[in-house]
């Protein structure tokens, strides 16, 4: 069924919601592994470094962002892996997913309006279009 699950997350509320759905899929089988990917784009990267120029602090900060999700995974005693990618979130996640063999990609939708989406581009839309695996979009 869904043995290899990729969860795209950034620690935001909507990504915690997606995590809950991914966990539901994962709970059905003990062999399931969830790979949590967090893509850090140039902007976030700059802000992080400007605020905390120590590399260790930056890594720590990024890990801490994903803590709510990691806690859920630990609570449910699931096999998981945390991966931090660098680059524009959409393409970086698609690239990571397509090089591996995932049964499903779970991603949250920020719910941008039409204009925002035109300008910013929707990460979930890019992933849904470009990933080879089935993609589940969570509102």
């Amino acid at each position, binding site marked *: 069924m869904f043995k290899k699950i990729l969860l795209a997350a950034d620690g935001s509320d909507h990504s915690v919601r997606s995590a809950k759905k991914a966990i539901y*899929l994962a709970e059905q089988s003990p062999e399931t592994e969830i790979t949590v990917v967090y893509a850090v784009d140039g902007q976030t990267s700059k802000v992080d470094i400007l605020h905390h120029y120590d590399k260790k602090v930056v890594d720590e900060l990024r890990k801490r962002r994903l803590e709510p999700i990691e806690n859920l995974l630990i609570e449910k005693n699931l096999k998981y892996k945390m991966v931090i990618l660098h680059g524009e979130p959409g393409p970086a996640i698609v690239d990571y997913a397509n090089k591996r063999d995932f049964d499903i990609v779970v991603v949250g939708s920020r719910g941008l309006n039409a204009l925002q*989406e035109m300008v910013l581009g929707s990460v*979930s839309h890019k992933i*849904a279009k470009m990933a080879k695996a089935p*993609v*589940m979009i969570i*509102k």
Partner: protein
Amino acid sequence: MFKKILLAFDGSEHSFRTVAKAIDIAKLTQDSKVEVLYVLSDETSKSEVINLWEAEGIKEDRLERFKLAEEAAAQNGIDYEIKFLRGEPEEKIVQYANENSIDMIIMGSRGLNPFQSMILGSVSHKVMKRATCPVMVVK
């Protein structure tokens, strides 16, 4: 969690791949039900058909895939119901899902290239944007 599943299925090749995924998802939750939605677009309904199964739009191979899908559902003990609606597919799917408190929409993607999807707009993208429940897009 996914008790009421909406499967957008029209018997086309790209939508056939969604059947297996819908069965997987339906198996996760007890007493789940798959509502199979076949939206006849306005063009199809213009042919003023009396018997849906003999509609011009539903060709032999589609009918065959419907049979295969029903067999697969029966073999896996999936509770399902087929519904026909008329109108714009994306509109009807979103409306049906939102009005019937569907827990997840499963649909295929035609796999248009970027240019085609820019001009035509992809049904899956519109559904993804406007549905309030999780949407799974299967390639």
